[in-house]
């Protein structure tokens, strides 16, 4: 009965935890494709909401795109498309200028 000794393929139900464990064990180059697979699902929030204008006065809208230290969240993390990221950057800079959002702190 050699069948029983053979390593079974992972049951899909145990997904996430095993995925992470495997990712940690494999070198970065091998991991990349996996990661891209997950990232691909991220859609630009502004495209999804059909936003044609990002208002710098809407602090609640901008806040999720600001990191703890005040930095702008990069596109590859937020999934924002390049056009909306450009508009977002302008809006955040304006909001900083009038003290609605903090400037990036160095500490």
């Amino acid at each position, binding site marked *: 009965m050699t069948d029983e000794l053979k390593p079974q393929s992972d049951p899909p139900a145990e997904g996430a935890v095993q995925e992470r464990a495997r990712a940690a064990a494999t070198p970065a180059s091998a991991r990349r494709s996996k990661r891209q697979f997950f990232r691909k699902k991220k859609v630009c929030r502004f495209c999804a909401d*059909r936003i*044609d*204008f990002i208002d*710098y*006065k809407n602090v609640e809208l901008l806040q999720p795109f600001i990191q703890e230290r005040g930095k702008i969240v990069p596109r590859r993390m937020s999934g924002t498309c390049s056009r909306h990221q450009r508009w977002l950057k302008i809006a955040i800079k*304006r909001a*900083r*200028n*009038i*003290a*609605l*959002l*903090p*400037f990036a702190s160095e500490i």
Partner: protein
Amino acid sequence: MEERIYDLIFICRPDTPEAEVDKLIALLEQTAAERGGRVEKAEKWGTRKLAYRVRRHREGYYVYLVVHGTRGDMIQEMERRLKVADPVIKYLTVRLDDELKRQRKLAQRRERRAARRTRKPKSAAAAQQAAS
């Protein structure tokens, strides 16, 4: 010159009496009128926490104006008035007409595209006929 639209936000010291704020708004309305423009909207947002300290203040009284004008010196003069106004600790003007125009254009384009999509079955058949 085509009409320009500006956002003008200014921040007063948090202890500024409201009457003083109203006087400033009236002054800016007058300045705009003198230069052929007008204040379309004036909103007192009231006291808000500042994201960083401004002239040692942690809070400020925000006022938001929308200004329309056609002369280049209008905003210049409004900014000068704000610079010399004692209660004002910070101000910002942003020209917005270009972006609002772009926004309208994009919305129109989207509408047109949506209209085309609903007609699609017919037009796709027509295109195929033309190709063959």
